[in-house]
């Protein structure tokens, strides 16, 4: 029996994020949530691995650390086919950076899922894009990890992982237990998430509650506080300022074209994806 743990995260659905200026974190309670697209791909990978194995040969636990409203994505995971859903939630866990998030997830897996064979995460979440939680969690658990996987295959007691690095493919094998983070969409799109079946939603809610664990249930110290324990802090969050400026080029056409290429050649060539030789036209005159 292979126990697959999929770490999922609720991210805000909107692109304009409400931030708490004081703590430098996202005001998650005011945003409409959804399952992080990359985590959903990780869940899809787990579902496909499970489907490829015999009946009762694999079990999937979806776990998330987040505010109480994150319970919804655990029901969603169950609607998609996860066997169990666990929410780690406590006001004391709020404000955790990637390091503290990995610590809390690690504590859960070590103490409550000692049989965990394969741990899957999204490569990076859509709201913070650090790509750190997966590797940090592997460190917490002291197990090997491979990032940015595009294809997984169970081979005996290890997992074969295909990943795309720069311009070549890499094929690796890793002993289990181990952790793999799933890359975002590519051309082959093996792990494009399936749609949630409506009957799955109904069944997920009928099948009983999501297991909810607070700091005490998880065995965290009484004075544990994720915000103050986090080694990294978000100092400021702001939208990058863009400036629009109109500029009128004057003079002879040749001079205008030269100026255009001299001053904006780099921008134009990067937009076109081509190197522009800026002074090739000189010989034509």
């Amino acid at each position, binding site marked *: 029996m292979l126990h697959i743990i999929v770490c999922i995260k609720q991210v805000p659905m909107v692109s304009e994020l409400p931030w708490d200026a004081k703590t430098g974190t996202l005001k998650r309670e005011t945003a409409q949530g959804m399952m992080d697209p990359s985590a959903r791909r990780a869940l899809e990978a787990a579902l496909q691995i499970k489907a490829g194995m015999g009946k009762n040969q694999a079990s999937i636990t979806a776990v998330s650390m987040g505010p109480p409203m994150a319970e919804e994505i655990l029901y969603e995971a169950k609607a998609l086919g996860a066997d169990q859903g666990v929410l780690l939630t406590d006001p004391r866990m709020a404000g955790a950076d990637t390091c503290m998030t990995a610590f809390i997830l690690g504590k859960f897996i070590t103490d409550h899922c000692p049989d965990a064979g394969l741990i899957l995460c999204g490569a990076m979440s859509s709201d913070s894009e650090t790509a750190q939680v997966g590797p940090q969690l592997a460190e917490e658990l002291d197990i090997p990890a491979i990032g940015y996987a595009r294809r997984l295959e169970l081979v005996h007691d290890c997992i074969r992982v295909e990943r795309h690095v720069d311009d070549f493919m890499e094929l690796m094998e890793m002993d289990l237990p181990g952790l793999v983070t799933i890359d975002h969409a590519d051309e082959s799109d093996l792990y494009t998430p399936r749609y949630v079946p409506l*009957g799955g939603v*109904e069944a997920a809610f009928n099948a009983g509650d999501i297991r909810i664990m607070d700091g005490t249930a998880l065995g965290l110290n009484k004075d544990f506080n994720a915000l103050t324990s986090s080694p990294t802090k978000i100092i400021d969050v702001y939208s990058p300022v863009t400036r629009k400026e109109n500029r009128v080029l004057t003079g002879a056409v040749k001079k205008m074209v030269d100026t255009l290429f001299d001053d904006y050649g780099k921008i134009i060539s990067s937009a076109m994806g081509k190197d522009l030789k800026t002074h090739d036209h000189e010989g034509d005159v």
Partner: protein
Amino acid sequence: MDFNPCMKHQLIRKTVQEFAENEIRHRAAEMDKGPGFPEDLIKKMKPLHYFGLQTPTHLGGAGLDTISYAIVVEEISRVSAALGLCITVHNSVGIYPILRFGTREQQQQFVPPMAAGDSIGAFCLTEANAGSDAGGVETVARKTDHGFILNGTKIFVTNGGICSTILVFAVSETDPAQSSVFIVENHTPGFSVGEIEDLCGMRANPVASLFFEDCAIPADHCLGTIGQGLKIGLSALDTGRIGIAAQALGIARAAFDESVSYAKARQQFKQPISRFQTIQNYLADMAVQIDASQLLLYRAAARKDSGRPFSAEAAMAKLHCSTTAGMVTNLAVQIHGGYGYSREYDVERYFRDAKVTEIYEGTSEIQRMVIARDILTRPT
């Protein structure tokens, strides 16, 4: 009183929204050139239980409650009302009467392929001389030694061009006051489909006339018992009205959302037209009616789920939602000006689609009769 949807209903809404936005929205205008729905789209919807919304799981459905069912119809209709129509008619007046009145054998035989989406359902009552007045039905069922022989013509049958399990409302040849509902399969000799109707809206849905010429059906294809026709019909319509109300609400919300973004973007007199009080008044009126529609619809659905009578509530919801759809789509075209009258803008389609919600599954006038009857028969 809790006006917040529970987590399950929230998740159902998000689930349908995701599917509708990714798979339906970009093809809705093309589908409107109809008739018919893209096969690959229907194929994707089948395993997600869109054709067995309230069908119990042991018959292959999703086993949803009525609130969830209304949410699904509302969200599908928000992107394509014609597809929303297919779904709601199939689920409510196609499958529901078999679940409610059918024998165990009828349920086992007919429901699983319907819930899987392999057999689309239709319900036909309307005839050339029978609409609001079901007493005018002229399709007759003659009792024979082996079953029944149906003769008659039904018109304006939703899903007519694609249906394979058809519930037919017919009267007894010997006693025109006695009506029954019969299950006819599309491969029955004597059954045929007429031309697809050239309608103002809902153009993707292949609405058609259906002909029954000496259509012989076995005795066990009579739904419920002989003479139960009116009871089945009224019960199907009560349920169907929740679906049509949800559909109308979906159309209204779509038109409203388009109007808000257009009003913010459209510049006249060097400012967005949303700055003008007239436009603001329109938007406010639309929002209030939509909100009221939502409350009426989900109250009716909740009543049905709790097992209480919901006929008057469903009629109120249907009346208000469809009136709102008419009013909101009309104002949406007005806010869009000339563009709103063009096929290039979705509000033109919403405007055409909305009208029929005031007509089918009981006209607004019939809804008022149902509501008034309820008021006047209440104990004082």
